[in-house]
């Protein structure tokens, strides 16, 4: 899957206003917090979310994750796109 297949994704993803990532020491996990929402995230998902700060392009996020996990770039690109699409659907990414 290629980035250009998702024209609705922002160029430099950033969490929506009122949404932030927080490390929860009680549950030992990254959680995404929004209005009346608490979403627990696992390793790779939290690595993607931490990079959604408006400074990186999707391609840069994919590069960084591919390096971090020494994984196939195309596979990572698909995972990142899937996750961003899901975040958009939940309105947790800024438009």
């Amino acid at each position, binding site marked *: 899957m290629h980035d250009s297949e998702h024209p609705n994704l922002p160029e430099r993803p950033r969490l929506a206003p009122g949404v*932030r990532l927080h490390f929860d020491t009680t549950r030992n996990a990254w959680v995404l917090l929004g209005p009346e929402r608490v979403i627990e995230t696992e390793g790779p998902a939290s690595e993607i979310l931490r990079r959604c700060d408006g400074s990186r392009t999707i391609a840069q996020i994919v590069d960084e994750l591919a390096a971090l996990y020494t994984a196939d770039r195309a596979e990572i690109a698909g995972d990142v796109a899937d996750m961003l699409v899901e975040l958009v659907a939940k309105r947790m990414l800024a438009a």
Partner: protein
Amino acid sequence: MTAPHARPDVPPPLGLLAELTHRCPLACPYCSNPLALEPHADELDAATWARVFREAAALGVLQVHLSGGEPASRRDLAEIVAAAHAAGLYTNLITSAIGLDLARLRRLQELGLDHVQVSLQDVDAANADTIADYAGAHARKLAFARSVVECGMALTVNAVIHRANIGHVAALVGVAASVGAARVEIAHAQYYGWALRNRRSLMPTRAQVHQAMQEVERIRPRYADHLVIDLVVPDYYARRPKACMGGWARRSLNVTPSGRVLPCHAAETIPNLEFWSVRDHPLQAIWMESPAFQSFRGTDWMAEPCRSCALREIDFGGCRCQALAIVGDAGATDPACELSPHHPRMLELAEQDSTDADIRYSYRGRPVRAAATAIQAR
């Protein structure tokens, strides 16, 4: 009372509702505050709230909802917001907007406020102001809601739904969208406290409820890209109960203005429960051990039909306060459940109340008035 609870089985709470004060300029007849409002003199000071927030975060709480009454009625609101943020909590302000302006909002934003929820009473300003018993409230709410969005903050609009505004649910969603809210709560009134006292003037008919629910589903796709619509469904015409509070003493706690810690807003209506105060105990001990929290935690307290029900860990028997209010027994199955022998009675009460032609509110915290309020129930 239940068998002793294995403490390692007690999961940490996620949310804390901080009722900073019961003072409020508005007097909505469905207010979730208790009938006996706590006096100003008994309120916890900001330093005690700061300690409660630190204890809450250490216990596992992630989100704090600063509520009331009207939290802006506290002059030290900024200090309280700063303390919640410093404790690492996601900080949500639940406000009527009265008492807040752009300057005060900007200050709260700088101090770390994450989210603002503004209540609307109706789309029609005259009706809205009558429901809140406050002239000019509606216009000020809309202006403040726009300010929240202009500051780049996330806004939720909350509308409590009852007989006088149930015809306007689609318009309420439209207003939420027009002021730039990211989320709207269409919350059918829950009948405890003031709402229970005013049930005859608030309860919609079953047909009105059905139509309003359909209306929300009809317009939902129109807002799919920019507005989350959360629906709180009405209990009286339901077939299954809600998992009230996500289960008693399972996910959240509520601290009253004077520091009493409750499993839910209305828990003080249940007789013989022993509530502990943050003035006397650390929050962790209250969550783990206080008698009120232990009373209906888990499923051991349940009688039939809950005890053997496959859904007992889905809905946790519904709401204890509703069971008390309708059945007279806080340990009974919530009569919103069609498996409760009292379910037909609940439906009958709703149908009786909903056909009362008059709307005469007993306004929260206001002296009783003789005259009916001039409100257009549609």
